[in-house]
């Protein structure tokens, strides 16, 4: 096809700006089993983790290219015994270091050692303001522990971001979630409306909120904002399915964001590994510079040359980059399609139908009851090793 042929040339012609953000997914191991986890649904296949020296080489190479932010993520990064060593290396290289954690394993001793190593900031996840729902959604007894960990983080003087993934179950609690974050003295509260990838995609029918629930919750957020001005900033991550507005995913494919998965595979985002036809290179075989600048997979959706005619003719193409490639693939089977959350997409009606099918949480029949080790609760599938093996 003509479009594909000229597209390939264009890919190569788009000069890559350096990556600014390196997300180091140190491990897919995690003590939690969140039903909305963004890790791959087959994560147990990628268990051969990079070693300490390999990670430090990745940090050095990314830093040399100009990366400034380094996120330690996972899974749960605290399950790695070498985390403090990795943070120290990253800090010495001049990265601003961010730990993205469930809090499990963050003892006061460990938090202090990480501080000494140069850790700049901690993002702590919460599932809800209630013990009942927090423990149910993560399928672990972690609510009380997270409360203690938040105290530890603040006592050590870290900037703290609380992150709460928002969905059908907890949107009605948003006011209490804000009050909880406030009482914990969080600097930022990220109300991350669930994005449908990984386990969240698998559970999308159960997690999808109604438009009314979203509107009510957003109004509550707006009510609290002025009161909290200067103390705690609230970030409301746009629920793109309901809003019908494509997000500028990762600020553009392989534009500023680089993920290295636990097994060393380099990706332009958390979930790109599932996209067919792209051979994502491993840091075990290639330098970060080669991967970023020369690999066809990273070049595949840079710039605008790959776009469908719908996106090509759109005045917002430089702003939203056509939305999300993974979402386009999940919803249409074609990663180069216009993101179907966009009203201009020929497949937008499917997204509309999914949103319209959402029900009020009070009408959900399955009881919210934490059962240790459960693989499912009604239709909800928890992220577990057994479920990942299929």
């Amino acid at each position, binding site marked *: 096809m003509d479009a594909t042929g000229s597209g390939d040339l264009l890919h190569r012609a788009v000069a890559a700006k350096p990556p600014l953000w390196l997300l180091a997914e140190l491990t897919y191991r995690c003590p939690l089993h969140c039903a909305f986890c963004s890790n791959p649904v087959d994560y147990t296949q990628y268990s051969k983790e990079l070693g300490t020296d390999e990670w430090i080489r990745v940090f050095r190479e990314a830093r040399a290219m100009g990366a400034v932010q380094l996120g330690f993520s996972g899974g749960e990064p605290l399950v790695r015994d070498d985390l403090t060593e990795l943070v120290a290396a990253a800090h010495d290289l001049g990265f*601003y270091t*961010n730990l993205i954690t469930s809090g499990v394993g963050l003892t006061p001793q460990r938090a202090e050692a990480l501080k000494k190593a140069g850790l700049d900031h901690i993002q702590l996840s919460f599932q809800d303001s209630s013990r009942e729902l927090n423990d149910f959604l993560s399928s672990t007894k972690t609510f009380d522990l997270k409360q203690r960990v938040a105290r530890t983080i603040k006592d050590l003087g870290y900037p703290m971001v609380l992150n709460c993934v928002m969905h059908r179950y907890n949107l009605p609690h948003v006011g209490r979630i804000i009050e909880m974050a406030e009482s914990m003295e969080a600097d930022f509260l990220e109300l991350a409306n669930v994005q449908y990838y990984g386990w969240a995609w698998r559970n999308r029918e159960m997690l999808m909120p109604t438009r009314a629930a979203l509107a009510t919750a957003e109004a509550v957020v707006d009510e609290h904002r002025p009161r909290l001005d200067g103390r705690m900033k609230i970030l409301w991550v746009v629920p793109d399915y309901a809003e019908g507005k494509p997000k500028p995913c990762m600020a553009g494919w392989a534009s500023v964001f680089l993920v290295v998965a636990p097994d060393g595979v380099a990706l332009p985002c958390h979930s790109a590994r599932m996209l067919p036809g792209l051979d994502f290179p491993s840091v075990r075989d290639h330098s970060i510079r080669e991967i970023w600048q020369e690999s066809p997979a990273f070049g595949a959706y840079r710039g605008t040359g790959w776009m469908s005619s719908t996106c090509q003719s759109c005045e917002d193409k430089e702003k939203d980059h056509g939305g999300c490639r993974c979402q386009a693939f999940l919803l249409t089977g074609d990663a180069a399609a216009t993101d179907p959350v966009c009203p201009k997409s020929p497949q937008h009606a499917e997204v509309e139908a999914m949103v319209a099918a959402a029900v009020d949480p009070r009408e959900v029949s399955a009881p919210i009851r934490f059962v240790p080790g459960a693989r499912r609760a009604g239709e909800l599938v928890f992220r577990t090793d057994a479920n990942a093996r299929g």
Partner: protein
Amino acid sequence: MTTPWTDSAQPSLGTMYRLQWEDAQQCHVLLFPEGMIKLNGPAAEILKRCDGKTSVAALVIDLETTFGEADLRADVIEFLEQAHGRHWIR
């Protein structure tokens, strides 16, 4: 309303911010959780001196001496007010 900066005030960077030179950007940047702000020359020169020990008066004199310019006080105060409004300094 924020209190105006007096000559004896000693501004310092907010605890979550770090100022550093970035070769790749060819400018100073302010880093904070998951973000980066590129600074222009004058902004970087002022923020570099916000060390919690230098008074506003000394900061102005230092800038005037270093760059051989006079009457920088009003510009510096205006920038400090903006930076404070964005929580970069306290």
